């Protein structure tokens, strides 16, 4: 093992109301892949932002390659040889690969042919397979991630930080990424890698640091621990897991999607092609797929945000294909959007108004002639009920939704949807960004409702969640449903293969 290249000592960072990092100790050695694990909200991202100069620590020291450093901005970090690949890519869609790579580093090789040549060289040397003159928005997610890596290599980074790099990749792409990482390691570079996916971490890391509630709790070598051990270190107690139970699936169809297709208004491949699926009462139908393969569009079509080009959506017996969102919601379809900040909440409105959102025409909230007025008192009462039943941590229902933590915001949304007793629930990534405890509670609520006859369309990138909750799993690829699997029998590799199109099997037997 090489000498230490990164040493963080007693790092502490406070935000209003929360201590994100407390007394963090971290030592990373050259030529290794060092993983940092912890659950959502444990403080890993903040720590890496400190290392990259995006945030400054309140206390503690940083030393890089043996020298003490003050990293006041990304420029300082880049100077020190650190490069960061963010979880949410920082790429300008309307720029080419070259422009994205060169931005901020124009002095290195200019912005013209010299730069282009260097980009091509790096791409070839590390097997990144990128064309400098392609617009980034035309690239797939895996390729965009490689652009981010190229950016970092272009600037001569010797220490590369990857923040949850596998969140957007399927198992096969993850393997490719890890091969790339091993190559980087072989060239003498150091990789720091944040994740909460424990088996991936165990397969590629040389050293693992566990962070819990903002502080380092352990530093281990992968050969000494199992995933279970790591998980317990992360959470500090017994891990809940989605368990299988008695099937509650009936044969009463609640929502049917029949031969539905959706053209792309910008031309090119249709967004959805001939999708057929049925959700029965008491059934959770899971949809697995790499982001951008049509899940969002399927949800939009079902919720009436878009109208399908052909095919029908049926709620029971009723054709709702051309209905507007409001009518569909009134008919009893609940919606948990994937991006809660953009689609699920009014951040600057108080909680009780957010509880009404999406249900403005529900009898419980309206009053007055023809239901034109909002019954504030009833809304506030409901809000209190949601807060209590779904354990939303807030001092009152009058605070703005934006001041709640992500997990509590999600609980609020789920609570408001479930309390309206929907017939069908469309849930997109329902536990994204939620800590493990709240995640278990949300799963419980969903399972309870399923027992009572709720039908759920579950879209998730978390294969554990899909496998644990669903009664059946469909895989979506390029707008088509390409496979249906039994969650009790399918393996992650099979799912991954179907998600990337490596095979097209029907129901693993």
């Amino acid at each position, binding site marked *: 093992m090489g000498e230490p290249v990164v040493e963080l000592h007693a790092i502490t960072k406070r935000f209003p109301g929360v201590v994100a990092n407390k007394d963090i100790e971290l030592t990373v050695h050259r030529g290794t892949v060092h993983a940092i694990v912890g659950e959502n909200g444990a403080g890993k991202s903040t720590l890496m932002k400190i290392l990259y100069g995006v945030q400054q620590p309140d206390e503690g020291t940083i030393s890089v390659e043996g020298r003490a450093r003050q990293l006041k901005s*990304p420029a300082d970090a880049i100077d020190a040889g650190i490069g960061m690949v963010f979880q949410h890519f*920082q790429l300008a869609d309307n720029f080419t690969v070259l422009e994205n790579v060169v*931005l901020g580093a124009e002095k290195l090789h200019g912005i013209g042919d010299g730069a282009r040549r260097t980009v091509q060289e790096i791409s070839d040397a590390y097997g990144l397979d990128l064309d400098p003159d392609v617009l980034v928005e035309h690239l797939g997610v895996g390729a965009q991630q490689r652009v981010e890596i190229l950016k970092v290599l272009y600037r001569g980074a010797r220490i590369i930080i990857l923040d949850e790099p596998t969140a957007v990749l399927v198992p096969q792409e993850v393997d490719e990424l890890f091969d790339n990482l091993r190559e980087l390691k072989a060239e003498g570079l150091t990789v720091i890698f944040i994740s909460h996916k424990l088996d991936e971490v165990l397969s590629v890391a040389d050293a693992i640091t566990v962070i819990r509630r903002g502080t380092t709790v352990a530093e281990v070598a992968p050969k000494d621990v199992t995933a279970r051990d790591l998980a317990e270190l992360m959470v500090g107690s017994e891990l809940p897991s989605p368990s299988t139970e008695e099937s509650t699936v009936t044969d009463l169809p609640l929502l049917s999607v029949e031969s539905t297709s959706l053209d792309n208004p910008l*031309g090119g491949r249709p967004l959805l092609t001939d999708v057929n699926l049925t959700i029965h009462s008491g059934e959770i139908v899971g949809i697995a797929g790499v982001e951008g393969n049509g899940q969002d569009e399927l949800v939009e079509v079902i919720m009436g945000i878009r109208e399908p080009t052909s095919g029908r959506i049926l709620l029971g017996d009723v054709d709702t294909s051309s209905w507007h969102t409001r009518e569909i919601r009134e008919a009893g379809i609940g919606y948990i959007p994937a991006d809660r900040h953009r689609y699920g909440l009014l951040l600057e409105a108080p909680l009780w108004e957010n509880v009404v959102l999406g249900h403005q025409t529900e009898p419980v909230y309206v009053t007055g002639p023809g239901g034109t007025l909002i019954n504030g008192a009833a809304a506030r009462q409901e809000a209190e009920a949601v807060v209590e039943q779904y354990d939303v941590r807030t001092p009152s229902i009058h605070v703005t939704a934006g001041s709640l933590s992500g997990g509590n915001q999600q609980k609020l949304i789920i609570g408001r949807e479930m309390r309206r007793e929907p017939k069908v629930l469309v849930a997109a990534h329902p536990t994204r960004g939620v800590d493990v405890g709240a995640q278990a509670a949300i799963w419980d609520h969903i399972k309870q409702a399923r027992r009572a006859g709720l039908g759920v369309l579950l879209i998730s990138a978390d294969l554990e969640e899909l496998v644990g909750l669903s009664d059946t799993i469909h895989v979506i690829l390029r707008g088509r449903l390409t496979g249906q699997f039994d969650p009790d029998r399918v393996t992650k590799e099979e799912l991954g293969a179907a998600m990337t199109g490596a095979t097209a099997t029907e129901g693993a037997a």
Partner: protein
Amino acid sequence: MSAQIVQTEPASPPVDQRTGWTGWLGSLVGWRRLVVLASLGLVVLSLTRVITGANDIDSSGALAAALALAAPIALAGLGGLWSERAGVVNIGLEGMMILGTWGAAFFASNYGPWAGLLGAILMGAVGGAVHALATVVFGVDHIISGVALNLLGLGAASYLAVRTFEGTGGTQSPSLPELPRITISGLSDWLGEIEQGRTFLVADVASVLRALVTNLSVVTVLVVGLLVLSWWIIWRTSFGLRLRSCGESPTAAETLGVNVYRYKFIAVVISGGLAGLGGGFLAMVASNLYREGQTGGRGYIGLAAMIFGNWRPGGLAAGAGLFGYSDAIYLRGGGDVIHAFLLPFSVFLLLWGAWALWRRRQGKRVVGLVSVLIAIGVLAWFALTSIFPRELTGMTPYLATLIVLAFASQRLRMPKADGVVYRKGEAS
């Protein structure tokens, strides 16, 4: 511009995916496409002239006036371009232009014509700095700040004018010294003769050339130079790359060490300076004094030209030319010219509406039907009257702006982070 609004109709497919003749047209980029469109436009103009006999459609006098009026619009639009490419919407161009008109008058009266131009730029830049302070430093909504700037610019210029110009209650300045003009007399006369011949297309080309060599102000040449310079800086230098990144993805730029605030600030100040120069042009070249209300909404028309030009200098110039032309027609009292334009306009609308109906695309049917109906109405109007009412010609530039935007707005692509209030440290 009002950034957040969801596309209310699907934008048309990216250029390279369209087929047929629209595809070919779209495949031409940059100046080649402009040349083809310009030639097409010239043919249409010439035809209209010959059919209706309204010679002032493209007489060299009208075109020269169009050029002179296009220049301030182009400057305002260029100002808008600089600002929006860096992600800041600048509605306050009108106010900065007004400040420029005063600045030109004040400095020119006291220190000579070139000082006048510099004064105009300076005053505009001051306006730009205030807008930058509000939007970049304090994070105020861009449009609100722009509206406030317009109020402030108007008020400040009015007050300053009253304080510095004697007589006429401060609504007008004394005559201002002139800036040099260029004329190539031999060429000009010869082209003039060809123009008089009124031959289809030949005379029109001669008009165009004659307008360029007769009485051309050096400031107009400067404007063309600024357009080219802007293109080169913004698209060919590191500075420009960073500036554009602020308008496309400021968070990405921040993570790469770009000082986003600095580039936005600089861009907005430059934007103000250009608008100010536009005001200076109005005061010193398009006329010869400062007059209250001189700008007449050209700051906004400049923004429209920028949108029409898809946030690129070439398209902006075309848009400015279009609006400058409509401005010139109005100022030359062209009731017969506007009337003549009813013909090609209605024909175009008829064809477009018919095409939309035939294509039978979702939602386009209503638009197509409406267009056809309007076209028939306009055609009837053309046939039944011989001249456009004098008092209504005042609408021309504004109506033209509306119509152009109504057709063009859908196909455009503004910088991705345009109008988004940016605060440091929001990289996730």
